[in-house]
């Protein structure tokens, strides 16, 4: 949760909230508010009376300015949005962010590769990154007990993890005494998950952490998960897990097209291996014909290259059931056959079931082999080999 703040929090509840974060965590699913958004309209009377520390004063000033700044930015954005709607001849009331993006990409067609570097018009909330909330009260007293560690949120998190772990140990002991065994079915499945990566954890905590600290976090989390009753604190654990992408579903399988003879076909363009480049067409009911640059398999006179073409067809069990056409240029015979092999494998995905796709992926058929020849370095005999050392 992005917490955008720079406002000063003067309500005492908030202190409790921060201090009792772990308690809340254990009971409810709400997240620990490491920071939040507060708008200060004017300093309350109490503050004026008391003596305010200098740091507090500076902080107040900054908070006010930021607030003001965000407000004007927001206003600007709203006006800009209306202007844009007017330019494009659309209704400003129903002009959505999607419309804005479309209009901008039409009006300013940038060819930059990185999409984030292209011109954009976004709400200031998205443009300006989040800040930390006030960590001390008007007298300069920090709210958080771990304020002086410099990274209170992170250490609070470690503390929480340990507390969870201890609770689970207690539970385990009690259960053991009672003779209850942990439920195997409810065990936390880690196969599809990854611990929250460092950068994401940093965003979440609004703090920068060191590598060693991150690994401390990982090991303590692992200890928590390794506990037999870890499913009891599933909510807590899941907050710091990130689902992994299923590799086999990652690439979308194209739908086959229909050619003049009513056969299904798939063309894979840009099959690259070494310096070879190919495009491969696979047609579905076929007789196992193969056509490479107008020749049959005798295009390759090396046995290994033919074997490479055979590999995906044989592996998927479609040998003799599909026709293959390939145009290939550049590179040597090994590179060319590798390029075609990849093309065949990629095209065959459309004609086999999901299980087979996963199997082909495991066999390394669907990975593009982007290894290239390593260049020779000066002062060396080759890419790695050094000249023979001779003293003189």
């Amino acid at each position: 949760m992005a917490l955008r703040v720079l406002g000063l929090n003067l309500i005492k509840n908030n202190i409790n909230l921060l201090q009792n974060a772990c308690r809340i965590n254990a009971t409810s699913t709400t997240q620990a508010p490491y920071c939040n958004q507060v708008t200060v309209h004017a300093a309350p009377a109490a503050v004026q009376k008391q003596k305010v520390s200098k740091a507090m004063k500076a902080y107040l000033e900054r908070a006010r300015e930021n607030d003001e700044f965000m407000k004007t930015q927001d206003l600007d954005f709203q006006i800009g949005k209306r202007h844009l709607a007017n330019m494009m001849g659309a209704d400003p009331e129903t002009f959505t962010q999607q419309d804005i993006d479309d209009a901008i990409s039409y009006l300013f067609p940038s060819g930059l590769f990185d999409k984030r570097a292209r011109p954009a018009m976004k709400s200031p909330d998205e443009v300006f990154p989040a800040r930390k909330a006030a960590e001390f009260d008007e007298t300069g007293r920090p709210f958080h007990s771990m304020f002086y560690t410099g990274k209170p949120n992170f250490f609070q998190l470690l503390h929480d993890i340990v507390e969870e772990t201890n609770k689970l140990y207690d539970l385990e002991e009690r259960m053991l005494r009672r003779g209850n065994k942990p439920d195997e079915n409810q065990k936390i499945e880690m196969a599809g998950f990854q611990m929250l990566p460092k950068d994401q954890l940093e965003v979440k905590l609004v703090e920068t952490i060191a590598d060693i600290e991150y690994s401390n976090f990982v090991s303590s989390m692992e200890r928590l998960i390794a506990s037999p009753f870890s499913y009891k604190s599933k909510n807590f654990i899941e907050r710091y897990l990130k689902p992994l992408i299923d590799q086999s579903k990652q690439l979308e399988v194209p739908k086959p097209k229909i050619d003049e003879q009513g056969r299904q076909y798939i063309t894979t363009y840009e099959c690259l291996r070494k310096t070879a480049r190919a495009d491969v067409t696979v047609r579905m009911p076929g007789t196992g014909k193969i056509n490479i640059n107008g020749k049959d398999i005798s295009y390759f006179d090396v046995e290994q290259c033919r074997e490479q073409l055979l590999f995906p067809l044989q592996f998927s069990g479609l040998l003799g059931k599909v026709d293959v056409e390939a145009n290939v240029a550049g590179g040597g015979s090994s590179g060319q056959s590798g390029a075609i092999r990849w093309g065949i494998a990629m095209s065959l995905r459309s004609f086999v079931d999901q299980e087979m796709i996963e199997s082909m992926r495991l066999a390394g058929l669907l990975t593009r082999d982007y290894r290239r020849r390593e260049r020779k370095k000066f002062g060396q005999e080759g890419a790695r080999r050094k000249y023979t050392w001779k003293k003189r």
Partner: protein
Amino acid sequence: MKMFRKHVGSISRISTQLQRGPPTVGSIAGLSTEAEAAPKQERVDEKITEFRTAITNPGGHSPLQIAKFYTIPAEEKKRIFGGGGLPKQYELQIKTFTEACLMVRSPALELLQYIKQADLSKPVVRYVLYGENGVGKSLTMAHVLHYGALHDFLLVHVPWAPNWMKRPKETANATGQEGFIDLPFDAAAWLVHFKTQNAQLLQKLQLKTSKDYVWSKRESTPTGSLLTELVEHGIARIKYASETIAAVISELKQLSTAGQCKVMVAIDGFNAFFHPETRIFSDNKQRVTPDRITLTQPFLNITNYDWTNGVCILSVDKIAMTEGYMESYMPRYLLGKDGFEHLDPFVPVHVDNYTDKEFTNYISYYVDRFWITKTAPDLEDQLKFMSNKNPYTLMQLVRGL
């Protein structure tokens, strides 16, 4: 390439025999029958399976036998192909499998049918086998040659003509013609080959020469002497072997035109005679063209259309040429303008890769002979894909399985 006939081995064997004196054909045949008798006996029971046929005479082959194997009896194999004619790798395979099996394939059947129904009183018809590398042109020719040997054809068989152009045993300047090159050893080897193939028939027919041949002051072959004597003379006097070949071939032409015998001419790699150059150097250190070699003339002579009572089976091959002349396997390209005009009109016979049935049978034959030991459900499909059903490629692939 490597497999393709290097008859050096067989020829050297012949040449060693030459020095010892001419061997008698009968003794060789006798020896071989003794040696092969035992395995032949036990082969009888396993002979007829799905991919085998019991008909060992190529004359009896019909489309029914297509894609089936027939066995050439060992003594016949020795007689006909003793001096070459089967590819080297195939010879090895025969040795390992302890039987000489040939597959009956459609180009051979087509040729056999032409030969059987041909009107022999007409000028000879030239059949030209052509096809990609390793599709079985030589084996098709071997099949037809077997037919010819069993049906009283005098065989004029050149196992691999490019050998003369590419790696001759010895070269010498021709005595008779100025500026020509003689290949005495090769010529003598060929005469031996001719004699081995046709000894029985020559004995039976008792062919006579039609004119006097004067070799030198003391040596001559008078009119009316037996053709065998002429051949023997050529073998004995290597110096005159080339001229003897010319004499024998012109005699054969006359005899067959006269109806005294039937002649089957089979020349493998015929296009070598029309290659732009050979590897032979003349005295002035220049490459000689094939038409300056004395051996070329008689074989061009016998492939001409001006005689009857015979058939010509020729094959044109990419690998008979040298680098730079191997773009296509088509006869016109390989023969060149001169060769085409020399042969025209000829009957081109295309030899192609295996059909599906032939391929399946070949695989089962290999499995039967324990040559393929791998077992996989899609073994045949995989081999089919890898070899593209090309016989030679299949043979190479199966080696390591």
